[in-house]
């Protein structure tokens, strides 16, 4: 389960069919998610606490504990979820595994890739992160790797595109 960030572990192109080399996500994603959690729920806690305390009496301000509880519960949950995300490049397909309670593992053969997309929203960009999304001819294929370093995302995109072209197979 616990696989640290090892940027170059997946570079071995001729990876045999044996145990796949799993790569975890960089810690930047966890930092970003935790910061967002703290900022939003912290504001909510302070906001409800102040509003209810001033308008309805100090007893009502206890409701502010609710978002605080969510924050305290969410902190380790985000960590668990972040640790569960990992991917591996095998010789002929890409594996993506994720989820803690509802686990999902996806296998996408390189030859089936129609399109590889690298996206980065404003918040992600601020934290220096990009997501890679793979599309096949099946819309149900849900192969997304969030929160990668832009350099790693580009390396992955180029490698996937190259392998996809070499092994191309349409419908």
């Amino acid at each position, binding site marked *: 389960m616990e696989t640290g960030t090892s940027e170059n572990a997946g570079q071995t192109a001729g990876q045999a069919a044996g145990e796949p080399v799993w790569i975890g996500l960089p810690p930047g994603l966890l930092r970003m998610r935790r910061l967002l959690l703290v900022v939003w729920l912290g504001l909510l806690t302070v906001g409800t606490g102040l509003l209810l305390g001033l308008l309805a009496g100090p007893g009502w301000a206890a409701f502010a504990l609710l978002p605080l509880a969510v924050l305290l519960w969410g902190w380790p949950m985000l960590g668990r979820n972040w640790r569960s995300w990992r991917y591996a490049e095998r010789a002929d397909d890409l594996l993506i595994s994720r989820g803690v309670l*509802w686990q999902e*593992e996806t296998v996408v053969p390189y030859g089936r890739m129609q399109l590889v997309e690298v996206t980065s929203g404003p918040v992600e960009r601020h934290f220096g992160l990009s997501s890679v999304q793979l599309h096949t001819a099946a819309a149900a*294929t849900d192969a997304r790797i969030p929160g990668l370093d832009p350099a790693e995302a580009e390396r992955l995109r180029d490698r996937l595109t190259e392998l996809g072209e070499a092994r191309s197979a349409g419908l």
Partner: protein
Amino acid sequence: MEAVKDVRDEPGPVAEEASAPEAAPVPGEVSEVAAGPTERRLHPVTPLRRAWAPVAVIAGWAVHDPDQAQRQLTRLTTMTLTAVLVAAVLGAALYGFLSWWFTHFAVTDTELRIRTGLVFRRTAHIRLERLQAVDVTQPLLARVAGVAKLKLDVVGTDKKDELAYLGQEEARVLRAELLARAAGFAPETAHEVGEAPVQRLLHVPAGVLAVSLVLTGATWGTLAAALVVPPLLWFATHSVWTVLATALPLLGAAGASSVGRFVGEYDWTVGESPDGLRIDHGLLDRTHETVPPGRVQTVRIVEPLLWRRRGWVRVELDVAGSSNSVLVPVAPREVADAVIARVLPGVTVPTSLARPPRRAGWCVPFWWRGYGLAVTDTVFVARHGLLRRSIALVPHAKVQSVRLEQGPWQRHKGLADVRVDTGANKTVTARLRDATEAAELLYGQADRSRTGRREARPDRWMA
């Protein structure tokens, strides 16, 4: 992606390379000029199909708001009424004529080009080697007029990319030519190849079709709803409009699921030709579908409860980019299996499917017995349903991605689901397999799909 389409705001290079677009030849006439594609127009009857549009709009408004419509009507004199009507019909006729005049199509060596649009120009380039299916349909009125609609299914095409209408004979010739070009015949001879000979595989007699519909639960369900719900509503509300508003859709649904299906599936014929599968059906609207070899993504064998005693099944198929899904509306199991063996060459439908382990009953009580899985050299087979059994077959070569899913309760019981995604946007699921078996299946299926693709036939099946 599959459909190579191109939307342009100005005529662009396509219009320029067309040979004399203003002096387009008379529709129906195939001019054989070797240099450059010849642009053609649709059948001159085409503008009429849009003439009813303003009438429909007025009718829709009147139905939507009947009281106001009556008030407005009494206020108008006969004179203005006729004037408005004439203007609307003339406007529609002009619109129909212009849209016909500005629609051209041309067949080149590699693609079918459809150029439309008066204000916003749009050119669709449909690549023939990506062709998934060809449909020639004739609605009732089109049959009277002797015209037909030709539709090419390519992933990503929409309703605009059909050729409506062509002359009956022209549509047949064009279909043969498109299939010949898609198959990879030499471009010079493509329009001389002609129709491939058809060998009939199956014909559904009208009697069997009628009995099968009588034995379908959906027919009786909608009929019962249409008979029971409106009277109940009448007792509850005493409002004519509410009753009508619910009764009409219900009656429509009942009609569609019984009479409508009979009319649509009447005279169902499945044939085989070198160009692929031919499916012809319809009593009033005739449809002729052609599915070239190697285009079928999924085949499903559906067995409703009431059909089981007679040993009948319904066979459905999925082709990427096509909305047609029925292959055989009703047939005995052996006959259906024989047809499937032609659709998916080298595939035999496995007779015994492995059930999930007994502890799957803790996840899905009772219904777990309906699930089943079998993997052969060529196909991935999954079954579900207890009363209405449905077996889905996916050739390994058509698998786009494989997923393993496991919820917390399933993990507690050591079970997992395996999902196989195909290009027709259908996902076939083998539910509640043993967790270790599922993990092996996940990697094994990825390997099989890769080797399966290598042995598959080329897109240009005659090349």
